[in-house]
């Protein structure tokens, strides 16, 4: 039987506020255990939550960026459960009246088409602490630095149909929250986490199958692999005559399988109720308009502008706007050299290859945008050829000297002196009588070979255009 899958994602994004959601404790990443956990975060009796204005602003920013309805009145609720890294015994979250309602975002699929995926809601909630089970024998160690940090939980509609789409959606969310500067969204550090709901059903039917939830996946690649693996498992279970049980599973990346998390003795019953320690949050149109006015240019708009303003292909514009840093870098290079197409080729080509090879972000590149712009300017003004530029580029990785000094000290300046070129051309004609004859007889593609010979003789420094022209003049006359 042919199957189709239905996938929904719950993505937790850690909001990059300076302090926690309901307390004045710092919320920096990587601090010594419990140095950012104070009386409210430890749930000492008598402490009360005070809501962080910036967390609200960030949530609204996100909502506006995905065209969502903004909750004019949002309400916090208590979700009750017991776990040592949740000292209060409840998590403060939003159930019925989230700050961000229905919205959507558009993803580019592999075949280049766009698909709109709905976002059901995004609500503000607090994070739990961290439990360490390994090192303390019969004890678990609890670090509450993370407890109370602000999260935005973004819930998608079950409109994703395969693993690749799920990753595209996740990458788009990643891109948007980074453009908005509301989260680092670094999956490896947990500032972006993903729970995946997966079910399958016979192709072209409408009734949803029983779903399982895979919790806490921490990389784009594992999201993709976990979905493949879970779909495979569900198919096998059903085709063997079994039934899918609604349960929470985890993805084991070493074995590439999902396994059930031990089900709790008593089914979860979170007994939600409105948080009596917090009042409803009311925002007005003026507040929303103010935030809307501050929104930066977002990936989709930037992509469209890039393809129009710089005449880039849809693909290049997509790659160059995937991150804000990449887009800013490209624009600086393009302005620096004045040739956007050339800038796009270098940024998506040599530079991206270099960054990938060394696993670097573009902001950590040893070749800054200004220097790459200078390099490209030297191609455009014929100081060096494109091939020599690649050599200079290689040198620039470890040599912080200016582009012009590198060209000068390596003696790479293009030979445009007509006397020198004439000497080269004469030598090539003398050494390759057969090819010269072929060219005379009209076998035009031989010119490429002859130019190549001249370039080799000049160690790449001759201006290929000039060589080409002079060769033709001399042979054809």
């Amino acid at each position, binding site marked *: 039987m042919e199957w189709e899958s239905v996938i929904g994602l719950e993505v937790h994004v850690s909001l990059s*506020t*300076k*302090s926690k959601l309901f*307390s*004045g*404790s*710092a*919320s920096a990443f990587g601090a*010594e*255990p*419990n*140095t*950012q*956990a*104070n*009386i409210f975060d*430890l749930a*000492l009796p008598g402490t009360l939550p*005070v*809501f*962080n*204005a*910036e*967390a*609200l602003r960030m949530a609204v920013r996100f909502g506006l960026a995905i065209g969502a309805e903004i909750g004019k*009145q949002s*309400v916090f609720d208590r979700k*009750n459960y*017991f*776990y*040592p890294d949740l000292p209060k015994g409840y998590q403060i979250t939003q159930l019925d*009246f989230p700050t961000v309602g229905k919205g959507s975002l558009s993803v580019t699929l592999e075949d280049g088409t766009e698909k709109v995926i709905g976002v059901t809601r995004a609500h503000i909630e607090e994070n739990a602490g961290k*439990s*360490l*089970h390994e090192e*303390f*024998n*019969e*004890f*678990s*160690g*609890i*670090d*509450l630095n993370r407890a109370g940090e602000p999260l935005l939980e973004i819930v998608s509609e079950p409109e994703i149909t395969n693993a690749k789409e799920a990753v595209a959606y996740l990458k788009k969310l990643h891109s948007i929250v980074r453009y908005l500067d509301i989260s680092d969204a670094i999956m490896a550090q947990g500032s972006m986490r993903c729970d995946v709901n997966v079910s399958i059903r016979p192709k072209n039917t409408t009734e949803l199958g029983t779903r399982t939830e895979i919790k806490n996946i921490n990389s784009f690649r594992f999201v993709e692999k976990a979905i493949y693996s879970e779909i495979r498992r569900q198919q096998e279970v059903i085709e063997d005559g079994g039934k899918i049980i609604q349960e929470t599973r985890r993805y084991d990346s070493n074995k590439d399988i999902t396994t059930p*998390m*031990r089900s709790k003795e*008593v089914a979860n*019953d979170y*007994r939600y109720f*409105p948080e*009596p320690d*917090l*009042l*409803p*949050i*009311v925002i007005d149109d003026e507040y929303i308009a103010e935030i809307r006015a501050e929104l930066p240019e977002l990936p989709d708009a930037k992509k469209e502008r890039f393809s129009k303003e710089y005449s880039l292909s849809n693909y290049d514009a997509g790659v160059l706007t995937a991150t804000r840093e990449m887009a800013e870098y490209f624009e600086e290079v393009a302005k620096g050299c004045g040739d956007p197409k050339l800038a796009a080729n270098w940024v998506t080509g040599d530079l991206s290859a270099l960054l990938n090879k060394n696993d670097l972000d573009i902001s950590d590149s040893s070749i800054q945008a200004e220097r790459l712009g200078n390099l490209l300017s030297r191609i455009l003004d014929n100081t060096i050829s494109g091939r020599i530029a690649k050599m200079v580029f290689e040198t620039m990785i470890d040599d912080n000297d200016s582009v012009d000094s590198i060209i000068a000290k390596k003696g790479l300046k293009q030979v445009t002196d007509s006397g020198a070129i004439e000497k080269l051309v004469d030598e090539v004609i003398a050494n390759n009588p057969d090819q010269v004859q072929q060219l005379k007889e009209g076998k035009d593609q031989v010119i490429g070979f002859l130019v190549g010979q001249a370039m080799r003789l000049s160690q790449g420094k001759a201006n290929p255009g000039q060589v080409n022209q002079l060769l033709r003049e001399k042979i054809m006359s």
Partner: protein
Amino acid sequence: MALDKSEVEKIAQLARLHISEADADEVASRITDILALIDQMQSINTETIEPMAHPLDVTQRLRVDTATEKDRRNELQTLAPAAQDGLYLVPKVIE
């Protein structure tokens, strides 16, 4: 709506409360009384009344996003039964 003993046990388990066998019946009957009051309240017609999230007709004040708390780990960890390497220790829990 009446609550029986097994429901009391389930709720007690969720709330991590220990209720002895001997007390269970009495607790069940007291909660049943409370539920009777709620039943009475639910018989009131509230169709035209807006639900409210809080009895006070005021809205939340917001806090400026600055880290105002200092690190008081050493002092706070003296309150805990056990701590080591900066971590609070609790009986082992593994999900």
